[in-house]
């Protein structure tokens, strides 16, 4: 037995290395690992009021951030090849009633036309990240866009389903506040988790929602605003979720699992003690 298993081990390890060595001959180089690795934004649960008004509030310091790369918008015309904002750090909090999302990105100059936007899928149907444009083989849904511009100093709650359908909602539910400091924009968007407006994204605690980001550098170059309209930095869809409150029913299931396992064990041990087959 000892002999047998010894050689089994040797053989299997040799075989495994052989197979892997063979496959490494064809392997592509591993992907670069310098990219920001986030895939989701977690809205941490806080007690009491949220730092919705103050992007520099010390409350934000303790909240971990996610980071996402951005790309110049090359998906539809008017395109842009080079953008100012390369990546964004995102933090989120909620208190069961409201949510606040802080976006933080580098932009060397403060300009009136600087702007930031969050985009969400609304409803069950997937929407394309580009304004929920029409998909050919999949029935898509609308998107909800929260748009902030430095000039106006406030957020606009918008909806779209396809290009050229972007419109300001009759019912405005979103607030935003931006602060520029040392080449960094910090913008906080806030809203109630749930609204009565069917055009809005409804954030349910514990459920995943899709979010995308867009930023415009409003610097004036050669008499023209550098980025505006479709010319912007964008991301595709990522996930966001409001951290749920502790759910005590989980412990019920855990106890059930414990009890079942213990009962199973008891039966097995009893059988073994009686000398029965298992």
């Amino acid at each position, binding site marked *: 037995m000892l002999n047998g298993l010894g050689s*089994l081990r040797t*053989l299997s390890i040799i*075989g495994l290395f052989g*197979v892997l060595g*063979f496959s490494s001959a064809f*392997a*592509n180089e591993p*992907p670069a*690992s310098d990219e920001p690795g986030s895939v989701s934004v977690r809205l941490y649960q806080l007690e009491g009021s949220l730092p919705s008004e103050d992007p520099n509030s010390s409350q934000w310091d303790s909240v971990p951030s996610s980071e996402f790369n951005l790309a110049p918008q090359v998906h539809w015309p008017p395109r842009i090849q080079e953008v100012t904002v390369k990546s964004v750090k995102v933090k989120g909090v909620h208190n069961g009633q409201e949510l606040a999302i802080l976006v933080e990105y580098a932009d060397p100059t403060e300009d009136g036309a600087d702007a930031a936007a969050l985009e969400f899928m609304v409803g069950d149907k997937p929407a394309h990240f580009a304004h929920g444009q029409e998909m050919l083989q999949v029935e898509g849904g609308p998107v909800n866009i929260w748009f902030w511009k430095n000039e106006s100093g406030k957020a606009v709650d918008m909806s779209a389903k396809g290009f050229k359908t972007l419109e300001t909602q009759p019912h405005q539910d979103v607030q935003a506040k931006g602060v520029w400091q040392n080449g960094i924009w910090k913008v906080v968007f806030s809203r109630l988790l749930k609204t009565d407006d069917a055009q809005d994204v409804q954030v349910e605690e514990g459920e995943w929602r899709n979010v995308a980001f867009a930023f415009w550098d409003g610097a004036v170059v050669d008499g023209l605003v550098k980025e505006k309209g479709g010319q912007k930095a964008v991301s595709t869809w990522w996930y966001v979720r409001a951290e749920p409150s502790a759910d005590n029913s989980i412990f019920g299931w855990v106890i059930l699992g414990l009890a079942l396992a213990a009962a199973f064990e008891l039966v097995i041990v009893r059988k073994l003690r009686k000398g029965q*087959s298992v």
Partner: protein
Amino acid sequence: MTSAGQLRHATVVQGMNRMPGLLKFGSFLALLFLPALAMAAGGAEIQAMSVEYRDVPGIGSRNLVWVVAQQHLLLAGFVLGVPIFAWICELVGWKTKEQRYDKLAKEFTKLLTSAYATTALFGGILLFLLIGLYPKLMAYLTDMFFPSFLVYCLLFLLETATLYMYWYGWDYMQGNKKTFHLFLGFLLNLFALGIMIVPNSWATFQASPVVVGEGDAWARAWMAMQNPTWWPVNIHRLIANVVLGGFIVGAYAGVRYLLAVSREEREHYDWMGYVGNFIGVFGMLPLPFAGYWLMREVYQYNQQMGITLMGGFLAWLFILQAMLIGVLFLGANYYFWMGITHRIPGSEGQYKKPVMGMLIVLLLCLGVWMTPHSLVASLAEAQKMGGTHHPLLGVFGVMSAKMTVSNIMILVTFMSFIMYWRAGKQETAGWAKAAKAIMGGLLVIAGIAVVVLGVWGYFVPAIIRINYFSVAQVLIVLFIMVTFTPLTALLMKSAKTTTEMVWGKMPIRAGYSLVLNAVMVILLMSLMGYARSSSRVHWHIYGVMRDTSDYAYSPALGYAAAFMSLNTFVFCLIVAFIFWVATLGDKAKAQPPKGSTMEIPGHTAPAMAGGAPSSGEKLE
């Protein structure tokens, strides 16, 4: 869209009116003899004018048809597979003059007769459901295939008559009349083949329709039957039916073995289980080749369908398929190996090493086979890999690797069988040593050649790989099987038996592993049925007639798998019931204790048979 459909129905009616006189006479005959069929032809065409689909509340028309069709197909697979090896068994018994093979063949046929009626019953239910639920589609197919319906009915009559004569005439046609009985068995298989390939053409036409040119109804039906995937499916199903039959017989023997109370019963069903497993494994060896051919034809016929199957939304299905086949290969080999260690006393030490070698090779192959091209990964894992494709292990995901390992697994399983065959025997022939050395050398060369071709396959254009390398791999494996089998048979002819096989000593887990194998095969057939049906996506007839019902979508794999599991369980219950009914008579006969009349397989020495199971066998 509806207007196009209605236009087509108008053409159906016109088509029926254009039928030549002979055919009208034929349909008249059909009306007389086959009211059900007449409803298929007549009922559908009238209804189709107004109704395209009917639904069944609750379960839904698609699910209902799914259950019934699956049961019918599985039963039919069994009913068509069993006569093949029952007949071969009878032939072997007749040639070798060993009565036990004749008895076994008769026992197989008993299972067959009892399953036959149920198969036909489900076929009838299926037909009524199809006519009722899919009148538009059935009208189209009727228009296309009506003459073949008549042929099918005729074959069915012949098959039934032959089966009756074959079964009830068994004891009467012994001795001189045996050759006639064997001829009946041959006819039975011939008609069974016809019964399978005619409806296959209807189903393959749905998947790969051809343009039907001018001609009378018979010519048109013949043109439609000759569609590109017809013969690949025929061959694939024929082999698969043998596999299904073998493993179900094995499972039946396994259950009877577990339930057995007397020593004789244990010995008999142990032997029967061995034969069932053997038949199943033997059929399984060429099956991947047949599957490969079918897939190739599908790709040639329509790339879109091929991609849907292998790279599109059904790609995940092939991970499940690899898993099921893997369990099946492991289970079948496990049973072989347990057979060696339990039936041949004192052989354990001798076979430990080779078994371990085979096990490791099998597991390595399975590891490669089951590694999917696109992995199941969380978003974060995928980001670390740079997509769902692993930079290192992704190379296992391609066809070249899969073909290579499946060939090696087949080789290993074949060698497992050869080892079992030679176990407990000592070659006496002078040339035995040389023959064994040659066989060993050939095996090593074949293994290396298969792997080298597999690796090389990565570096050549796909077309060369498909047309030459894969074919060469298959041929190498087939060559080994074709040369080793007679060579071993020759060696065994003169070999002296050192240790007799002892039947009836297999542990309980052997019975369970036979059941497991059968479940795997049934699940595999259900899975591939789902794949075949889903590869048509939203078409009734691919590219020709669209499915416009509420059920035009293909369900997700998890839901489908739950449904397949349900179907498998129902099928197991049906089969258990049929077999239970079939063996009621035996129990009455077996009441008086007369164990000595039971067939004791093998040339068992009395001293070795029986005895209390050893302590280890109590454990499952």
